[in-house]
């Protein structure tokens, strides 16, 4: 079953690469509006909050596959009291006494602080806590500190706090893309811990049920579809529903506020964010149309050119494997069910090719 699945994934991935390369080639023209790509390949960029873009990407990213995130810990995973290699990142974190994690606090269900009490909740937060548990045997506030981080550039990726060493890792609904692992401000990703898909959110139908509408069906209807500016979602909206349909905003959550005020008709973004919006408004729902494209989320660690064999990503991957396999209350399935309010359909997939970005 696994092989069959991964072959499917691989086929999907190759098609995506072709489309993405085509798009990248057409990119310069697209921005001027000279030509419209007929289809859009998966690029990263959605799933993060704000998105101001300083400057365009320099070189087009090269395709990358599972090997880009595959590093695992050599030998058995060290317990909280087992020795770790001296001078390594783990050693540094242990000596400090707590793990620092970059998260978001404005994404309902994934990273949020509902009562401004500095008690973050959500799936991202819980995954981060499992990392602290693996290092210290505990995930209380004494052993894990959270910082709010934002991606400076959705396309190439850059978490200032991560790059200047203020946080050890980032768990923040961040799509694994090749561009983010290859640019000047590159970062390392773990294997996926969640597979998001880009979907459409609309008000409930007149029968009180989610509407069946797809993005393509909105073409020519004059309806406005909201998404984060500079994101791939905006490109997809333009390609499938027409240029006029795209309604870019600074923050994905602005879309919900605008939808509630009837200024837009639909929101198109990762289902992870859409689920959080559903949780904040009983009158909207993700439409039943099939997802447009998949977005694997990874745990981000810093990339140190002096230490290309980054020692934190392998550790994170091995912990993640353990958490995914764990059937207990701190296992992946339980956390998913608790935080997202539904049982997962499947485990997080490792695609044959990662989105190019």
């Amino acid at each position, binding site marked *: 079953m696994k092989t069959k699945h991964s072959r499917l994934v691989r086929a999907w991935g190759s098609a995506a690469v072709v489309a993405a390369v085509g798009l990248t080639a057409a990119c310069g023209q697209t921005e001027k509006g000279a030509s419209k790509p007929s289809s859009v390949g998966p690029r990263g960029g959605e799933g993060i*909050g704000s998105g101001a873009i300083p400057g365009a990407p320099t070189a087009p990213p090269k395709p990358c596959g599972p090997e880009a995130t595959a590093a695992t810990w050599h030998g058995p995973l060290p317990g909280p009291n087992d020795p770790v290699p001296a001078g390594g990142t783990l050693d540094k974190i242990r000596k400090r006494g707590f793990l620092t994690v970059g998260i978001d606090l*404005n994404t*309902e269900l994934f990273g949020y602080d509902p009562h401004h009490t*500095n008690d973050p909740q959500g799936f991202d937060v819980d995954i981060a806590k499992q990392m602290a548990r693996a290092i210290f045997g505990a995930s209380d506030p004494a052993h894990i500190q959270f*910082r709010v981080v934002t991606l400076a550039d959705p396309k190439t990726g850059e978490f200032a706090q991560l790059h200047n060493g203020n946080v050890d890792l980032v768990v923040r609904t961040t799509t694994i893309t090749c561009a983010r692992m290859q640019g000047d401000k590159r970062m390392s990703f773990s294997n996926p811990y969640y597979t998001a898909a880009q979907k459409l959110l609309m008000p409930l139908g007149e029968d009180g049920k989610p509407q069946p509408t797809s993005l393509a069906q909105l073409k020519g209807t004059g309806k406005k579809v909201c998404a984060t500016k500079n994101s791939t979602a905006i490109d997809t909206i333009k390609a499938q529903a027409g240029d006029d349909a795209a309604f870019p905003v600074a923050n994905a*959550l*602005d879309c919900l*506020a605008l939808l509630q005020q009837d200024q837009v008709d639909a929101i198109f973004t990762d289902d992870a964010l859409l689920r959080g919006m559903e949780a904040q408004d009983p009158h909207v729902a993700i439409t039943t149309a099939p997802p447009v494209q998949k977005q694997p989320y990874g745990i981000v660690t810093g990339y140190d050119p002096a230490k290309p064999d980054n020692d934190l990503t392998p550790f994170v991957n091995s912990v993640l494997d353990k958490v995914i396999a764990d059937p207990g209350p701190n296992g992946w399935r339980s956390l998913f069910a608790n935080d997202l309010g539904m049982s997962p359909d499947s485990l997080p997939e490792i695609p044959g090719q990662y989105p190019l970005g």
Partner: protein
Amino acid sequence: MTLATGRAPTNPASAAASGGAGAAAAASVQGQPPEPARPRTDRRLSRLRVVLAVGALLFGAAGIVSTQVRADGADDVKSHSGVLIQQAEEIYHRLSDADATAATIYLHVGEAPKPLLDNYDKDLKAAQSALLAATNEAGGDSAAKNSLDQIAQQLPIYAKLNATAAANNLVGYPVGFRYLTQASNLMQSTILPQAQKLSDTEAKNLSAAEDTATQFPWLMVTAAVILVVVLLVVQVRESRRTNRVFNLGLLGATVGLVLSLLWAASADLVQSGHLDKAKKRGSDQVSILATARILSLQARTDEMLTLVGRGTADNMEADYAGTTDASDHHVPGREELLADTLRDAVGIATDRTGTDLATRASEDEGAWRVQHQALRALDQQNQYQKAVDSALGERSFATGQTGAKQAFDKLQDDLEQAIKHSEDAFRTEAKAGADALTGLQIGLGVLAVAMAGAVLLGLGRRIAEYH
């Protein structure tokens, strides 16, 4: 008509002399033979008598009109324009305060403290009252009316956005912050600029009123110059003709004229002095201090939104602290502008109390900046709760007794006092300016009538001598 008096001499040579050239007229008089035909002189004197009497009355009228213009201006400074600019500043201040308060309310866990909620309500109500009052006062001023309309239309939308933000916040939905941001954007980039425009318009109107109030009384002075020249010429001629040194009537009229001028000049000087003080000690100070207060409230909004945004509103901190780009181009933040404005306020203060109050506000600003920086550092070091406590002033901190809230509140208190001090000075001086002209118009009228009477009597006696 007064000019015709200058040409009254019968001799054709002197008839050519213009009325303003008194010396020339006097010279031509010298060359005249001493006894012209009696009936002609008689008729000439009769005409001169009427012309001089009418001239005196016209001078009085000119004085009254000139004074009325200045009095209207002074009254405008005291009431209409002075009131409108205060309403405009009240609107601006209240709305800025409401915005800072809304962000502060949002930062509270659960229901915010009642005084804070009351403060927000009070701000909006006060802004609405000021809007109404300003609309009534604005009359036909279309620029002001337009700004007021815009504000009145946007304000309910603003209040609704904030209410939605609060409702979402109460149940812990992050979308509430997006509403708060929308509301604040609407306030900062649409409503407040209109309030600013209104303030600017009213500041212009006030300065125009000040100009009118201190306008040089050309009409009156011109009339006075002509009248005095004619009076002198006639007197010189009469004294030659009659061997009497003085004609008491004409002399009386001349004295009356001089008295009128002295009275008007001194009253106008006193009035100008008061209006100058009203501007320097009052409106100039109020204007700069009000600017400082608005800036401080906007900076407070930045401080709050940065905290509430949890990393998604860091542009607000840039707004507060300013930015410097790679090529060293510095864009000053609101804090810097505030500090500069307060320094200016100290610089233009005109009395001890004003200087003290402005200096205190400037020091408060420095203290707040220190607290703000400490707060930002706490937030960045994952001590969010402490940063919030500092912003809301709820507990004391390791760094000291006071937080950003106390520092900000102290700045507001001192600014409030400084503005009140300057407003009092403005009101006192504007009223004194308007009062300075009291009685002048009646006085000028009475003196003019007396002058006319004196001329009629004085020349009447001369004409009688021919009969």
